[in-house]
């Protein structure tokens, strides 16, 4: 008789799990990923939830250099703002001036200050360099011509960051911008940049191998399907950004795609093997033999709505997406159904 148990298939089946946790940089394009690192050029992106008009400075703003063994570090000023994490979503990022400079052929500021050493005491990172919300998307210029500033690298620590590696340098212009407190919308952008969308795993039943003609149940690991929030604050102003998972688009690798309204229903122990998932399932019609690796590449893309509120204001950010990938082997049912029927 067929016995099915819901298991994690993401790693055991194909080992092709990709998430949006910002620590991932393990392939050669890791630091080019437009979702994680909205570099100049990402405005070419064809959508898919990337934020093409973002400036990398959105990564964070409290360039309080924590001068661990950093000889040229300017510990710039005091009394800067801080980012308050929304509970488990707290990400503590610290910035340090770097000795990075663009290749001579690349974009370069007209007046570039050598980052290490000289002029350190005069440099104070500016806060909140984002364009006003609602501004038209425009090509990112990094750094803007003529702007004084420096390249900073940063490290983040907190849950989900497995070690404090440096992130790609971002351009932070010199400050200060005296007497201009951040607007709620600017704070909201900071909070948004600190959202840490989870990387749930793709679950499916049957385990190991799907069977032609037998319903496959699809769902995402429960614990990580839920609201995610982060808060940014300066004295007197606090703004929270909240991401809600809205739907999951599944691509089954055989040309079929569909959207499920929720994370899907785990296959209950002892349920009818021929039963279909009440809300998210699929039945393969062809075996995966002949595919690359003899398996169908499967992706699940979670769509998030992102809103913010605080200081008496509220707004909506563009949707974000996180994509997770795995692969399903699909066998002819009679080839596997040897345990009796």
């Amino acid at each position, binding site marked *: 008789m067929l016995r099915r148990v819901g298991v994690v298939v993401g790693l055991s089946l194909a*080992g*092709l*799990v*990709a998430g*949006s946790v910002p*620590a*991932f*940089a*393990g*392939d*050669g*394009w*890791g*630091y*080019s*990923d*437009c*979702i994680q690192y909205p*570099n*100049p*050029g*990402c*405005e*070419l*992106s*064809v959508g*898919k939830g*990337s934020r*093409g008009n973002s400036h990398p400075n959105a990564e964070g703003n409290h360039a309080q250099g924590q001068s661990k063994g950093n000889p040229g570090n300017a510990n710039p000023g005091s009394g800067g703002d801080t980012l308050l994490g929304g509970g488990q979503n707290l990400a503590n990022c610290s910035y340090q001036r*770097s000795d*990075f400079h*663009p*290749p*001579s*052929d*690349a*974009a370069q500021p007209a007046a570039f200050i050598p980052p290490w050493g000289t002029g350190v005491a005069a440099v104070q990172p500016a806060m909140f360099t984002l364009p006003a919300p609602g501004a038209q998307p425009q090509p*990112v210029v*990094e750094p803007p011509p003529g702007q004084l500033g420096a390249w900073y*690298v940063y490290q983040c620590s907190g849950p989900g960051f*497995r070690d404090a*590696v*440096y*992130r*790609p*340098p971002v351009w932070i212009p010199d400050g200060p911008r005296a007497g201009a407190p951040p607007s709620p919308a600017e704070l909201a952008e900071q909070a948004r940049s600190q959202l840490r969308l989870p990387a749930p795993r793709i679950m499916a039943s049957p385990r190991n191998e799907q069977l*032609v003609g037998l319903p496959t149940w699809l769902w995402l690991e429960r614990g990580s399907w839920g609201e995610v929030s982060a808060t940014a604050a300066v004295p007197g102003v606090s703004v929270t950004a909240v991401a809600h998972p809205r739907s999951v688009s599944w691509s089954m690798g055989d040309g079929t795609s569909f959207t499920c309204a929720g994370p899907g229903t785990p296959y209950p122990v002892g349920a009818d093997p021929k039963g279909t998932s009440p809300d998210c399932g699929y039945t393969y019609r*062809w*075996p995966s*033999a*002949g595919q690359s690796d003899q398996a169908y*590449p499967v*992706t699940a893309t979670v769509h998030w709505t992102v809103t913010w509120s605080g200081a008496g204001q509220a707004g909506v950010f563009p949707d974000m*997406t*996180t*994509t*997770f*990938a795995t692969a399903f082997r699909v066998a*002819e049912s009679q080839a596997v159904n040897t345990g009796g029927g």
Partner: protein
Amino acid sequence: MVTGNVWAVLVAASTVVVAGCSSSPSGGTPRVAGSSGAPPSATAPLAVSPADIARQQATAAYLGMWQDMAAAATTSDWQSPRIRQHATGDALLVISKSLYTDHLNGVVTKGAPTDSPMASSVDSPSAPITVMISDCGDSSNWLKYRNGQLFDDTPGGRRSITAEVKKQPGGSWKVTRFAVESLGSC
């Protein structure tokens, strides 16, 4: 028989792809550089248009850029002169930043990406200066290492890439911008 049906479908799909690649985006009308007034012979081999040349050179520049980056990434040499060969502007900046970050973290990247670029558009049929490239790059064999160990458990995979390639004042083609999507985006 099921297996036979699958192969029939695959063969049909392959045929469609091949046909799609061979059709000219400019409408199939061969263009001849310089106007000689003589109509091209219907049976002669297709003349190579300026747009075709641009597509070919832009695609080569695009591939060259990732080869250059892969070479520099084996030592995370963010100041390598090689990365300037096929990239400029924002594209060069992003590559250099990426290599610098790896250099700072003591990380190197082994292997090389697998790319399958296609020129998706050319700005002018007669005097092109901008070619857009669409690619589905595979980083499965282009992973980062630190101290001989894989840097993290991201196994690499396919990423949708859009790139802008522009003709340079000296006549060469260089990638000016690119956008790399998430793993699994193609």
